[in-house]
């Protein structure tokens, strides 16, 4: 309502519209919008409730991980810690026992890093070149090849678990970090190739033609023209792969050994251990520690992620 009044006074003082007697009652200027409307209450109310609903478990985890065991036994899981202690975090990282080892999650963390980094690099490098070749260098049988690759994305992992065990055993990679790296790289291929192919297809083909006239070859065009234009899609692939591989449990538990288990498997072993006291605070801290890496990746590259999704995955 205030907006209308100011608009009306402005109209009165303005000499060009002074004689215009409709200024007070008729619409003028921007349409006034009320902040407290029924629509806004519903929208913001719903959003608030949903946000709380999703954040509550996280709150409980953080709060519990900062409490000592005696405090947890009171049973007030929503109450903030009376006495903040970082003891559970230290224990989760360095002292918690899984099986015979009592060096906490740190071993699993480094295993996960050693698995994730090479598989992310390998899968993105290969898939981006695949996608580039499929999008721009239409070779004979390209469509068939692409179809086969996409079908790969729809086959459930469980079907392939045992054949891959045999494969890795024959190659002498079973139970090693490199076996896991290979499995992750292969399973990332279909979806990543699709992603890159669609992104490269959305780059105007004339750029590619111009580069060919300018004498750039397959690799020249890839490294000098395509790569510099594709940062958003590489970030998308990075996020998909880092979170996917970091959070993987199935492959880790099937193809790993106790000394090569990734962090997720080790977390499970800590949380599900049946001996002794169940240390909820340590479990919470361990879970938070495990989830930290994907979380950090999201926070750093969230904006680029949205841009890449919008540019590559939807278009094309």
């Amino acid at each position, binding site marked *: 309502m205030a907006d209308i009044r100011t608009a009306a006074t402005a109209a009165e003082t303005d000499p060009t519209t002074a004689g215009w007697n409709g200024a007070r009652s008729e619409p003028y200027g921007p349409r006034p919008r009320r902040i407290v409307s029924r629509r806004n209450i519903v929208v913001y109310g719903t959003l608030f409730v949903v946000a709380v609903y999703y954040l509550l478990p996280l709150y409980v985890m953080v709060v519990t991980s900062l409490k000592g065991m005696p405090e947890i036994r009171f049973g007030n899981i929503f109450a903030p810690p009376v006495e903040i202690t970082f003891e559970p975090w230290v224990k989760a990282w360095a002292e918690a026992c899984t099986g015979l080892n009592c060096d906490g999650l740190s071993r699993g963390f480094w295993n996960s890093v050693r698995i994730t980094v090479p598989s992310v690099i390998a899968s993105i490098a290969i898939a981006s070149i695949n996608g580039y070749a499929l999008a721009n260098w239409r070779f004979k049988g390209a469509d068939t090849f692409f179809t086969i690759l996409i079908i790969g994305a729809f086959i459930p992992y469980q079907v392939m678990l045992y054949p891959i065990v045999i494969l890795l055993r024959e190659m002498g990679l079973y139970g090693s970090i490199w076996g896991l790296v290979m499995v992750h790289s292969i399973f990332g291929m279909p979806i990543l190739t699709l992603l890159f192919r669609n992104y490269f297809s959305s780059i105007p083909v004339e*750029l590619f*033609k*111009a580069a060919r*006239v300018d*004498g750039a070859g397959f690799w020249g065009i890839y490294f*000098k023209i395509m790569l510099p234009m594709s940062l958003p899609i590489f970030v998308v692939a990075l996020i998909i792969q880092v979170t996917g591989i970091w959070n993987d449990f199935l492959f880790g538990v099937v193809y790993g050994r106790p000394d090569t288990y990734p962090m997720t498997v080790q977390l499970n072993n800590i949380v599900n251990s049946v001996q002794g006291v169940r240390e909820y605070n340590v479990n919470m801290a361990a879970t938070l520690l495990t989830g930290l890496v994907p979380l950090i990746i999201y926070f750093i590259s969230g904006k680029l992620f949205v841009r890449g999704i919008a540019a590559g995955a939807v278009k094309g």
Partner: protein
Amino acid sequence: MSSVIVRDVSLSFGAVEVLKSLNLEIGKGEFLVLLGPSGCGKSTLLNCIAGLLDVTAGQIHINGKNVTWEEPKDRGIGMVFQSYALYPQMSVAGNLSFGLKNARLPKAEIAERVARAASILQIEPLLARRPAELSGGQRQRVAIGRALVRDVEVFLFDEPLSNLDAKLRGELRVEIKRLHQKLGNTMVYVTHDQIEAMTLADRIAVMKGGVIQQLDTPQEIYSRPVNRFVAGFIGSPGMNFFEGSIETNSAPVFKSGDISVDLSRYDFAGPGPEGRQVELGLRPEHVVLGHGADEMPVTAEVEVEIIEPMGSDTLVWTRYGGESLTVRAETDKVPRPGERVLVGFDPGRASIFDATHGERL
């Protein structure tokens, strides 16, 4: 000596035949325009000459060398694209020098060529900028520059001005013509804009359905189109057409409804047009309205329906023998709609086409 020879070139995408055994010879230093509606295969032909598409059959020679199997970079061509196709992550200088760096030319030579191209196109102040910071006209200049630095014999233009607004298009058109006069390179220019074709070309190849319909000088194509399609495609506003038949008494006469036109002044290409169903084509600018109309061999009184003032002249829409007839009139003596006026024309400047196969008679 021919600069570019296209010999029996066919191209099919699966079952779709885009180019049909096409032959074309382009002289050294000639400006040839490939003109046609979209989908006629003109851009495809250009891509074949550039080596960006493999031909299904036939040969392409550039500068006396058979380049049918050569890579684009080895064909001695430079190409300019409609969407500019500038590399967005490189500066203007980077765009210009990209091809030269790929050819591993010495640094000094690259710098010299870039500087020369920049001065010819007057883009020196822009060399450090990114394509995103340039206007459309500037971008197209850079794109032309990228072809220029390659120091090649043949320039290929793929609708280079279509993305620009009308005023810029006019300016750059003149610039391309000036460039051609200055450099004397062979230029092959694809467009669907007949004004560009008429103003730029030494010869125009009008294409339709993967076949060259007519290959001739702009003036010849304009005044003596070989078939109904070329006649209708060239000229703006378009040619007026009247369906009818030819009767011969002492001289051939075109008859359509209640109009009859004496064709004794018309220069028939072949003999015996008698009795055929034909179409008579008449350009709006060859019809005289008002003063001077009575001196023409054929005159008629028609009613003005609509007038379209275009500044320099005015288009008058009338009806003649049941068909619409547009006349180009001078702006200062334009009739009002509803008025009856006298129009006249010379059948010697008309075109007559066979109604069934559309060939010029």
